[in-house]
């Protein structure tokens, strides 16, 4: 029987006293995709993950993982998943090898050739004690631990923290491989760029509410960018202010800075048709700006 959802949440709600950490969250993560779970710090990403893993219990709502109830069948579920907690801590007195052996024993064995391959790909030294490792190298052990049992579903809470860019790229390849083999990846992150590189779809959470779920392609087309243009003469702000997709224009002599969420090509056409463009810098807008865009959309509709 083909699964409809690798993760299915229905009205998932978690309150800590007066604090609403999760509000009525509905979500489906489909088998065979990398799902990016995006939100600023404190948005409820970790609460969501801890809830579906049965570390904490929902105030209301239910969740299922791989078709099994997240509370009733939590032990069985954990047989099929790999997990990297946010703020990963392990036993400082154990070596990487000891740590992996411990978890392998709790899982009833693991393919050690696979573990060695993973360690090699990430450049991880398993003979050192966890406490003697830098945080990035500790994170690698956490990743190996999650990948080593060839899980059907990987749930990872900000897993790339502390990893250098080369290792991050290898890690992204590993995630795509899992998906290529029919597995599913649930990746929480607060950086859009990371999620964009690897995910098929993205859910954005803010203040405990799931604001939107979109494909990465759609999100990218909507994504606001900060664009800074430098011309050889003074420019008139009204030229840009009226252009669709442009907001918050600030002109300072030869410089124009703006937020833009349309087609870059058309903006460049506009700019070069009037003036001589000397330099251009564009920056991915930060998450908060994207959220604001979405809020504007939500409010508008």
């Amino acid at each position: 029987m083909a699964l409809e959802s690798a993760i299915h949440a229905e009205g998932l709600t978690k309150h800590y006293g007066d604090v609403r950490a999760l509000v009525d969250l509905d979500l489906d993560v489909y088998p065979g995709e990398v799902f990016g779970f995006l939100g600023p710090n404190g948005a409820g990403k970790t609460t969501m993950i801890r809830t579906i893993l049965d570390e904490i219990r929902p105030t209301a709502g239910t969740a299922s993982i791989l078709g099994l109830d997240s509370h009733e069948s939590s032990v069985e579920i954990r047989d099929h998943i790999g997990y990297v907690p946010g703020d990963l801590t392990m036993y400082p007195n154990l070596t990487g090898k000891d740590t992996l052996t411990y978890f392998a024993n709790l899982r009833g064995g693991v393919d050690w050739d696979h573990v060695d391959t993973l360690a090699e790909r990430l450049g991880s030294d398993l003979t050192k004690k966890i406490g003697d490792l830098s945080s990035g190298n500790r994170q690698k052990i956490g990743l190996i631990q999650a990948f080593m049992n060839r899980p059907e579903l990987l749930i990872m809470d900000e897993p790339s923290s502390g990893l250098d860019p080369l290792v991050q790229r290898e890690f992204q390849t590993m995630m795509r491989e899992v998906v290529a083999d029919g597995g599913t990846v649930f990746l929480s992150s607060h950086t859009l760029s990371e999620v964009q590189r690897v995910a098929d779809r993205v859910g954005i959470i803010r203040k405990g509410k799931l604001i939107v779920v979109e494909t990465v392609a759609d999100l990218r087309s909507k994504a606001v960018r900060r664009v800074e243009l430098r011309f050889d003469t003074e420019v008139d702000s009204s030229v840009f202010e009226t252009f669709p997709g442009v907001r918050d224009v600030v002109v300072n002599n030869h410089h124009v800075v703006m937020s833009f969420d349309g087609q870059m090509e058309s903006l460049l056409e506009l700019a070069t048709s009037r003036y001589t463009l000397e330099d251009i810098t564009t920056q991915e807008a930060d998450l908060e700006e994207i959220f604001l865009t979405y809020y504007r959309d939500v409010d508008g509709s």
Partner: protein
Amino acid sequence: MLATVATKTFRDRWKGAVIGSVTLGLLLIFGMAVYRDIDLSVYTSLPEALRAMMNIPADADVGSIAYGAIYGSYGALTLAALAISSGAASIAGEERKGTIGLLLGNPKSRTHVLVSKAISVVLLAAIGALIMLAAGLAAPSMLSVDITGIHVGALMFHMFVNAVFYGFLALAIGGWTGSGATASGVTGGVMVLSFIGVGLLPVVSGLEDISKVLPWHYFNQSQPTINGVDWGHIGVLFAGIVVLFAAGLVGVNRRDLKSATVGVALIDRLRENRITQTVAERLAGSARVSHIWVKTASEHQGLVLITALTMFLIMGVLLGPMYSMIDELMLSAMDQFPETVLALFGGGDMSTPEGWYQLETFGMMAPIAVMVVTIAIGARALAGEEAHGTMGLLLANPISRSNVVLQKTFAMVLHGSIVGFSIFAGVALGSVLGGLGMNIGNIAATSALVTLLGLMFGALALALSAGAGRVKVAVFVPIGAALVSHVATSFLPLSENLAGYAKWSPFHYYLSSDPLNNGMPWGHAAVLSALALALVALAVVLFDRRDLRQTG
């Protein structure tokens, strides 16, 4: 800066000091109320050395006996333990948490930090001592007991200086080694051994002077309750404090600070050595992480080893031959004790070897030894992993929460039993070596009972650990419960009116049937086992229901 660091350290720990000293204050009031009801004339006929051992002055009256029995032992030990825990945590604790780098990122020297940590140790001891002093002065007026001629203030001053001494010993060791466990372990060991030594040595003629090398001697051997402050003895302690502080300063300034403590155990060195590598790898590596219970057990092996060896050698084997060396005079004096008074000291009648072992080993030290191990494991079992942030990762594996609780429980039972067995083996061997002819079966029964008692309090720690997820709660509540229970079992039977309440105290099911003479009280053993099992079951239920705490 000085004030900032001192205040923060103080703020982190003042609650423990207040709760501890308020508890002691209440116990004092309770003890004084009980003593008021009984005939004290028997104390005056005791030989001098014995009275010294029991902290009872020559012209014993209600007040001085109550201060001596409650504050002189329980109170002084508690206050010193508080000072030790804050002293040990000072530098080493910040290193373990990895916060020392951040702290020293501020433009202040290590010396500054150590000085402020030292100030907070002194402050904590002072707060504790002041609260106990207040209770000590309030108790007699509440109970209309005459305390003319008793120097409560002097006793408290001695207790305070004594506590600071041990706190600074822990501070100095922590400063040199950077290991909080070493600092509190070694200092706690020195404190307990010197407390025992000062009690034991004067009983044997010829050994009295040896006790002068023990720091505890300078706390109470001058009888400050009766004689006021002994500035000579205080001077000795104060000199010790100054030396220890200087040693701590040198230690902290000379070495590399650790970023986060990774203990290098003997087994790690063996693993690095090529010759021993294979064997060590098998012991430390694959075996240690084969199951949750093995890993839990291995984390506490040092504590268990030291506790078991101490109980076996000192409280067991050594005491056998020592019994044959005790003054005849003292033994005959013991005959005159009424049972109610003996009950106070664990019910030991020293005219028999059974009574001797009961007084010295089984009455107080054996329960403490088992409980140190069972409460440590029970409290850390679940809450410890939560505090370290490893519980989420552990439970990401396909094992149920109850499985985790039961495996941790098994590790606790295993280690508690090892300590219990070491007590049995030590006392049995001591009896053989000293030619005392004690019944081996009865020694086994008593050791089994003390193990069950310890496991019961360990299970209480486990249940709190499971329910609250906080190590501190799970450590201090069982210790408090054990203290109250021990005092209640010792004191309640002294008063005819209150004797019936003793059966509500777990300690009652340990020694009240005199198992060293009468053998195993199966009913009592069943009560303790049932309590322990019920608490473990409670732990399973509580842990299964609860939201796991996040790191921190």
